[in-house]
């Protein structure tokens, strides 16, 4: 039975219990489901050639044995079988392959198989997300068959393209623009068309990466600008009477308040769903623009749909049947970052502590390929078990990855490749994700040029920035889109004096981390830079 038929047949409370009843589980009940589904996955995965390629002949029979025998994995462990799409080697037959870019990987793309069981779970959880997002309080969701969704995400074969398909199976919510048409349009065209259709039909939901939604929301303003030259009749053509009424009121209000028209003036959104990185940079602006607080969800290509916030907007609740959750405590993953040979220990979902920061490790249920998989995302636990189920706030990617606005993931390898390709004589560098005064993310690259190159080539900050940008764009399509779609220039360069990195090493007896060093370490580096200048001035003075 489709969800929309259930809407007619069952009461709200019954539907809430069906889809969101997991919110009322006790931690012990939650773990019971987790453990049971993990046993299924252990059975399937261990017997598969993929599992055996990692287990090397071992056969775990219990969860404890599974955790002891299976090392923490990354995509490299699966690449040989997954990239060649060896369906027979997998724990269960895939019905769909979802892909994403693999920045810093040995291949431009990563692919992940989805089984029927995974998709069924995904479908149920997608409806749960919609209910949790539209609910004003427990059980009081607001979903109608006639609703419309402004959809600002990539189509299949990307994971985000799954959503329209899954929704279509359950409810006739209309996507603006329709997915069939949207795939043929450019990003800008899609947004404009989406808003145009929204003016006629209304928009009840909006879903996208925070940064993209922010950009899309701004597109409404630019659309208004473009309409200025047109006659009133042409402007109002096709707009529904209710939107027209709101449009007229909004125009009057905007004139009075001397501001531009905002989406909230025209649309009464039931929920605004955001996913991806850096949402916290855009949440406040999005709420201002749409009049509703965004709800964050956690999903991905490999992990499927993992969890979502509720009406309280205070952290993501994980679904019990999507993945088996393990968490690497902060100290452990830092230890692992310093010494890659170190195998960090993990804690389970019911062992996390309030306020603790963890890197998540996932085992996908229902015949998924990935087990004990390090997705590379870091969460903070908010609300321990004494407050019901623990919730998690997304912090960022792991320090080894710089993710800008959920668009691109830059690793040490990709920076090194860009530097090599650019042939710039950079002697030392370190990169850190920082935020502008407007709370927008960017990558700050601290570089030190080779002394010999200073006399033979032009090495101003601007030249370096443009040079490196060219190669980042060359290597990474998503990086290019950052500028093209969001208008963001994600790279900022600070040139350090020659010998600064050596000075740092001399002072602290260690090299500074290449990726995302602590702010204190950057300060120390800048102090080395400054101190060097002081020393030089002193020398200069003496020389004079």
């Amino acid at each position, binding site marked *: *039975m489709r969800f929309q038929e259930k*809407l*007619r*047949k*069952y*009461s*709200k409370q*019954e539907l809430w*219990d*069906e889809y969101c*009843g*997991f919110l*009322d*589980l006790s931690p012990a009940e939650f773990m*019971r*489901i987790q453990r*049971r*589904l993990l046993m*299924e996955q252990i059975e399937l995965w261990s017997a598969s050639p993929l599992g055996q390629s990692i287990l090397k002949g071992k056969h775990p029979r219990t969860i404890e044995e599974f955790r002891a025998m299976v090392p923490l994995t990354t995509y490299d462990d699966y690449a040989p079988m997954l990239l060649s799409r060896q369906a027979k080697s997998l724990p*269960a037959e895939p019905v769909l392959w979802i892909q994403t870019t693999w920045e810093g990987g040995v291949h431009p793309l990563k692919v992940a198989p989805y089984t*029927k*069981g995974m998709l069924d*779970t995904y479908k149920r959880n997608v409806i749960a997300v919609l209910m949790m997002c539209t609910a004003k309080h427990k059980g009081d*969701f*607001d*979903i*109608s068959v006639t609703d419309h969704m402004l959809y600002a995400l990539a189509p299949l074969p990307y994971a985000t393209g799954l959503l329209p398909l899954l929704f279509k199976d359950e409810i006739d919510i209309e996507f603006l623009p329709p997915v069939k048409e949207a795939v043929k349009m450019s990003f800008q065209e899609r947004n404009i068309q989406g808003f145009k259709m929204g003016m006629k039909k209304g928009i009840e939901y909006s879903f996208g990466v925070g940064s993209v939604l922010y950009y899309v929301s701004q597109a409404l303003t630019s659309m208004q600008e473009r309409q200025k030259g047109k006659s009133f009749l042409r402007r109002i053509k096709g707009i529904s009477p209710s939107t027209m009424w709101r449009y007229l009121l909004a125009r009057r209000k905007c004139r009075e308040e001397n501001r531009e028209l905002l989406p909230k003036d025209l649309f009464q959104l039931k929920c605004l769903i955001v996913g991806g990185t850096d949402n916290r940079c855009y949440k406040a602006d999005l709420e201002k623009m749409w009049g509703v607080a965004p709800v964050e969800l956690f999903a991905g290509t490999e992990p499927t749909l993992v969890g979502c916030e509720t009406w309280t907007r205070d952290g993501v609740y994980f679904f*019990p*049947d999507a993945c088996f959750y393990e968490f690497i405590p902060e100290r452990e993953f830092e230890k692992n970052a310093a010494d890659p040979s170190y195998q960090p220990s993990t804690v389970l979902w019911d062992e996390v502590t309030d306020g603790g920061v963890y890197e998540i490790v996932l085992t996908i249920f*229902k*015949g998924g390929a990935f087990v004990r998989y390090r997705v590379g995302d870091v969460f903070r636990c908010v609300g321990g078990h004494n407050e019901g189920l623990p919730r998690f706030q997304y912090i960022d990617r792991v320090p080894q990855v710089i993710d800008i606005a959920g668009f691109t993931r830059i690793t040490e390898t990709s920076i090194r490749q860009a530097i090599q390709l650019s042939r710039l004589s950079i002697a030392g560098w370190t990169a850190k994700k920082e935020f502008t005064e407007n709370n927008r993310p960017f990558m700050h690259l601290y570089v030190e040029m080779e002394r010999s190159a200073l006399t033979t080539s032009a090495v101003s900050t601007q030249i370096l920035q443009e040079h490196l940008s060219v190669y980042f764009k060359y290597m990474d399509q998503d990086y290019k889109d950052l500028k093209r779609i969001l208008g963001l220039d994600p790279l900022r360069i600070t040139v350090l004096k020659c010998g600064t990195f050596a000075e740092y090493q001399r002072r602290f007896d260690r090299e500074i981390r290449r990726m995302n060093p602590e702010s204190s370490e950057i300060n120390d580096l800048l102090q080395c830079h400054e101190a060097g200048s002081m020393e030089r001035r002193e020398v200069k003075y003496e020389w004079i």
Partner: protein
Amino acid sequence: MSGYSWISIISLSCYLILFVTFLAAKKTQKVMYTFMVFLFVLIFWSGGSFAMRIQLWPSVNFWHYVSLAGIFLIPVVFYHFVLDFLEEPRGGGRFFWLVVFLGLIIFNMLTDSLIPRPEVVQEGGGVQFIYHYSWQIYVVFLLVVLCWGQLAFLIRRHCKGNGAVFLQLIPVLCGIGAIFLGNILATLPFFQGFPLDILSGVVNAGLLFYALYKKQLFRMTMLISRPNCFLLSSILGLLISYNYLLPIQNFLVYVIGVEHNHALIIMAMCMLVFIGLLYLFISLLVNALFVRGDQQQGVLIARFSQEVTRLLGTGDILRKLSDITQEALGVYRIFALVRMEGEDYKLLFTSSPLEEKNVSLPPEHPLVQYFRENGGCVLQREFSRTTMYRGMWENEKQLFSSLGIECFCPLICEDELLGIVMLAKKEEGGAYRVSDLSFLQAISTICAIALKNACMYEKALNEARQDELTGLISRKYFYELLDQEFDRNRGGSLALSVINVDDFRLYNQLYGTHEGDLALQRIAAIMKASVEQSCYAARINGKEFALILPGYDIYSAKVLTETIAAQIGEINSQRNSHVRSRLTVSAGICAAPYMAASAKELLKNADSAVYSVKRAGKNAVLMYSEEVYRKEMEQQSQHKSGYSEHASTIYALTAAIDTKDHYTFQHSQNVAYYASELAKAAGLEHYLVEIAKEAGLLHDIGKIGIREDILNKTGRLTPEEYEIMKSHVDNGVNIIRYLPSLDYVIPAVLSHHERYDGRGYPRKLAGEEIPLAGRILAVTDAFDAMISRRSYREPLSVERALSILREECGKQFDPNLAALFVEMVENGRIEPQIQKSVTLEKLGMPPVVVPDRPVSAAAAVPAVVPVGVPVEGTPGPGDAPAF
């Protein structure tokens, strides 16, 4: 009847029926009370109207106002009813509208402006009421519209996105429409005089009743009880006959000429008959409409209860459950799972034998969890909507789907989930109804009680028939079964295989009884797995098993037994944790009718074959034959005392020692002499004295396997040599265990170097753990070693040796035995064998010729500490056992 008063009667009757029946019903929700208030208001309305039409006392006007109060309160009570029906907590208009409409009633009573008093028109003996409405009537309509407009708003708000609730509300909304329409049409001239408004009230009440029924707030059968039916028929009878009483009385008195008093009696009788007939009619109608289905199910439940409580077999109970379910509901297929001892719920019964049999649900299965927490039958589609369903495995979902399961029923007794019944779709199609689930719940509960009793009975029976340790058939039941099977297979064949574990007492002593029990369990598991369903595996003795093999001839029984024996031999080779000696079995086979004419003979012959195998060196499977029979007869005729029976073997062995080490030969004879004397003095039975003597002769037999350079070494033994020397105990045991019927000396031989304080070897047994014969040997062995001349020391004096024995009482030696021995030596009951050997004749054995050779200086292995052979690297006497 005049003036449409029949309409009022009907409507009043309807309301009264509903009101009375609801009075008796269990009120589970507030809305049921509101509905009763609504009926009460309707009774006001219709009752007032009826009283007006029959011009009841006190006046038409009075009843007009009663009727109006009813009609004015309808909108506001209806408002309350809908909000309660929706369980809407909000709705601030409740009080407001109540005040407004009460105000209207009072206002109208004072002014007569909204609905004026009717004009009473006499027409042909009857009466009609003509209402002269003015425009003010529309004020009332307006207020009703406003009230219900707000109600519509509240309904919309409540039902937004809640389609199911709106569907439930549809009859209620139709009721609003009916009452509104009826009242509007009543104001039109066309319907003047006809109480359309009252009729619409009946329609409305019926629709509301239907809405409550659909919402399953009550069961129809609960409303319709016998007293309710009687009350209804009485009220209805009175109301209907009220108009006819006077004409009938007049007819009887004036037309027929009956006396007045008689007429009254006749009328009363008629009335009673009429009410009686009415009651009969209502009862039949109600039974036909509502109760028949329930009654049928009730009969089935009663029958099931009677039948099932007589059954004691789980399978029979489940079959009965299946039969009754199929009869009542026409279920296509039924599967019943019952909890096994391993806690899993396994499929024990299916109505379709061709179906999947390998179905089992572990205790943590979501369905099991659901029943533990919720109980009650559940439909598959409802279960799939629960949060627990998230924990289902994909193959489990597929299994339910492939079996076409639509409904699950728990078998719960005293909060214990004994089993689960899974039902496929109905044969005639259609979904399971609430009444079906109630029926299933009832029979599941009855079945669960019967099942629990059956399980307890089966458990008790199994315990009586089952060997506790191995789970095989017990000895007692084995004899029963053997007789049964023998009778059953008279026309065919029946084989019996008796399997006896070799040297099991030794196995127990070497590795402990726990390991011994484990070994028996593994042997039992092998036997269970190896035999067919029609065969039986039993444990008939401590270390003896038997297989009853109906339909087997000797050859196939032998093949099977050999396979089992081979698997038993592999038991310890498969276990990596410890090195255990190989388990072997001696098996004897016999089969009827080939070699036995009775069950008793069958068993006797198989036993004989086992005995033959034991005598022939164990570890073999032997078919009973004439040869076995002949040997058995010979054995019986030549049977002598236990000792003389084995004397030749013992001679052979002692002679073998003598060729290698003459000292040991002499020492063994001495020890045998001391041991038998001490055993006698300790009051042991004759056979134990014999064992002590034989053990004394054989206790150092293992030295045959020790290198002569070590055996005869005059200097200190290195630690390695010491270890080799200690191995003579195990060597001895390994030699003796292959001697037929001498294994009873093994415990003594094995433990003659154990110390009473637990510091001995090889097993470090202590105190009473050491077999008695072993403790006897320990004392006598040490004494003889001390007073003997050795290559590395002079013999100790008897006094000194006795003094050491006294000192070591409770440490090295059993204090009682050592004290007794000392006492026996001191008072001359034992003669110390100083520098001489005890002759075999002295021991009661025939002399044996042994080669003459010089007395070796090599050590026997006396266990006494202070006079030990020096061992390199050891701190000195007293710290370690020495030779």
